């Protein structure tokens, strides 16, 4: 019972991170119909930016944890969204209107480029930060097993819930949200109505990168180490989360992320952890067999 509760906490934390990154995949797919394979590496870049920022703050003698966290979040979100914009501008926009495969290949190339760039400029070694947010609550003890909720886990869940609410508002209530949804439905028509489609797409990429940046900061605080390779596995998992929840669907990405986090946490606690990924992908296949467009995805409507 205590173990289950502990894994529920661990799984939700992991799932929140997957979800935040999955939204980047899903939003980009929604608007231009491509999988941005460089998105996992954008997340990796943001983790490096946050390590740099943490180290700088420590060197400047900033000792207040909330101040450091907020500063690092802002710095990371700012720089990472510039990366998101630059990737779209250089690697995808020139290819808009060509075959569907071209931007896909370009995305894979961008992913390799970002990985190697970070490896060459930052070195191959892992970059650690000293523990920022230590400690937590001991929730309850059953048979000598203490359920522990680390402050960093709480932070991840709270920040994620807040961002979900903010983004739901942004997409459903604001004029940018309307433009974004209009572009999803029909880019040509939207442009005829005087909306700057390129700008909307750029902003979408930047928003996706911002969420990845938040995930990067949170993960840096939670795990304490980053290396140039972290984008790959997490990127694949987040992409899977987006597909599971229904690619193109905003709440679907979060749902998919949390589901995958929970499956992984419970599977590795009760069954053989080496088959954890097998379980995740088996469930993905099952879901796609019965709901080809994912849990919350709507089937593609033929536009006439």
């Amino acid at each position, binding site marked *: 019972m*205590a*173990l289950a509760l*502990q*894994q529920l906490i*661990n799984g939700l*934390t*992991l799932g929140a991170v997957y979800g935040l990154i999955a939204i980047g995949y899903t939003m980009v797919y929604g608007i231009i119909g491509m999988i941005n394979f460089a998105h996992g590496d954008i997340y990796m870049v943001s983790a490096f930016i946050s390590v740099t920022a943490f180290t700088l703050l420590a060197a400047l003698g900033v000792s207040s944890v909330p101040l450091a966290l907020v500063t690092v979040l802002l710095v990371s979100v700012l720089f990472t969204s510039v990366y998101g914009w630059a990737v779209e501008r250089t690697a995808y926009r020139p290819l808009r209107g060509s075959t569907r495969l071209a931007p896909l290949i370009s995305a894979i190339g961008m992913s390799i480029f970002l990985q*190697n760039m970070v*490896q060459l400029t930052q070195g*191959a*070694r*892992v*970059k*650690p930060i*000293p*523990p920022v947010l230590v400690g*937590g609550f*001991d929730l309850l003890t059953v048979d*000598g*097993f*203490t359920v*522990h909720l*680390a402050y*960093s886990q709480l932070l991840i869940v709270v920040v994620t819930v807040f961002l979900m609410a903010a983004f739901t508002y942004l997409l459903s209530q604001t004029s940018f949200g309307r433009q974004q949804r209009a572009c999803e439905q029909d880019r040509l028509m939207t442009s005829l109505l005087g909306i700057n489609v390129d700008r909307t797409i750029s902003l979408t990429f930047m928003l996706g990168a911002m969420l990845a940046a938040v995930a990067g900061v949170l*993960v840096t605080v939670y*795990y*304490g*180490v980053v*290396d140039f*390779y*972290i984008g*790959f*596995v*997490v990127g694949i998992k987040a992409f899977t989360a987006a597909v599971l929840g229904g690619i193109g669907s905003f709440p679907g990405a979060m749902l998919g992320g949390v589901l995958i986090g929970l499956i*992984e*946490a419970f*599977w*590795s*606690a009760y069954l*053989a*952890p*080496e088959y*954890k*990924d097998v379980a995740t992908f088996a469930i993905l296949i099952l879901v796609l067999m019965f709901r080809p467009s994912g849990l919350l995805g709507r089937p593609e409507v033929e536009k006439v």
Partner: protein
Amino acid sequence: MRKKLLLAGFSLLACAASAVHADHLVAIAGPMTGQYASAGDQIRKGAEMAIADINAKGGVLGQKIKLEVGDDACDPKQAVSVANAMINKKIVFMHGHWCSSSTIPASDVYNESQIVMATVSTNPQVTERGLKNIFRINGRDDQQGQVAGAYLADHFKGKKIAVVDDKSAYGKGLADEIAKAIEAKKVKVALRESITAGEKDYSGLVSKLKSAGVEVMAYGGYHTEVALILRQAQQAGLKLTVMGGDTMTNSELVTAAGANADNVLFTFVPDPRKNPGSADIVKRFRDAKIEPEGYVMYAYAAMQLFAQAAEQAKSTKYADLEKAMRGGAFDTVLGKLSFDAKGDNKLPGFVVYQWKGGKYDYVGK
């Protein structure tokens, strides 16, 4: 003016002469990129220093040595294509690969093309397949596992011991041997698990260890995962001692795990930095701002091995080189290297080390 022309003419001639007088091409291969790239970096630094030293003393058989670097990223498929590329470049000696799972498939390719290789891979299968071209300058996982398992059974009586691996050829091989050795001492292994390397979240494993009351974890795998497991165990309020293999020599473990690294024990061959004969070389590495940890000295020794074997054989042809290595004894920074019929080295086996305050030393020191 005329002098200058003459000089130019001479230097042209010199160029032409050196081009005819080809260098010995030797190669290293390992993870130069990818998540274990820091090990590749160690190999490269060790080999570069050794080659500079050998060339400064006049090279081998009157010719200089030149280094080729192959990057397999610890991917078996890439390892095979690196091997083919190296053969096309006509190398005469290979130091590599690093991951056992890369060394094993690549060694078949080198064997076919008759190229001698010296590796640090520890999986028993590396030398158990009857290949004549492969020499191991490191210990074997089965020796390593016996030392680690016996140490755990003797020193952690009454504590629950888990054995975990990362499913790699190296990690699983080592973990199986440790488990066997623990059970040979009539101690029960409380938990036997595998994880997926390359992830960040091992909270599932940590919860499982915690709920089973495990205090000691023997781990077959690489240091990157151990650092994460230790940090996450600390966060979950679990005090865990880890026993690992030779990969724990990487100081990246300390960077990543912080003070938790003090809970890491590992088995490794006696530290080459402690050899009185290599003090001078250790100092020169440090002067060049390179700490000769982990595989640095092994790469250095591999190049010494090649140079001395070629001198003894008076040739760099495969058959001569192979015969010289199998029969000879070589003064290297690791000590006196010589090989048995399988190609395993005869140096003394493994000892148990412990990390303490960012440095490792024999346990109990």
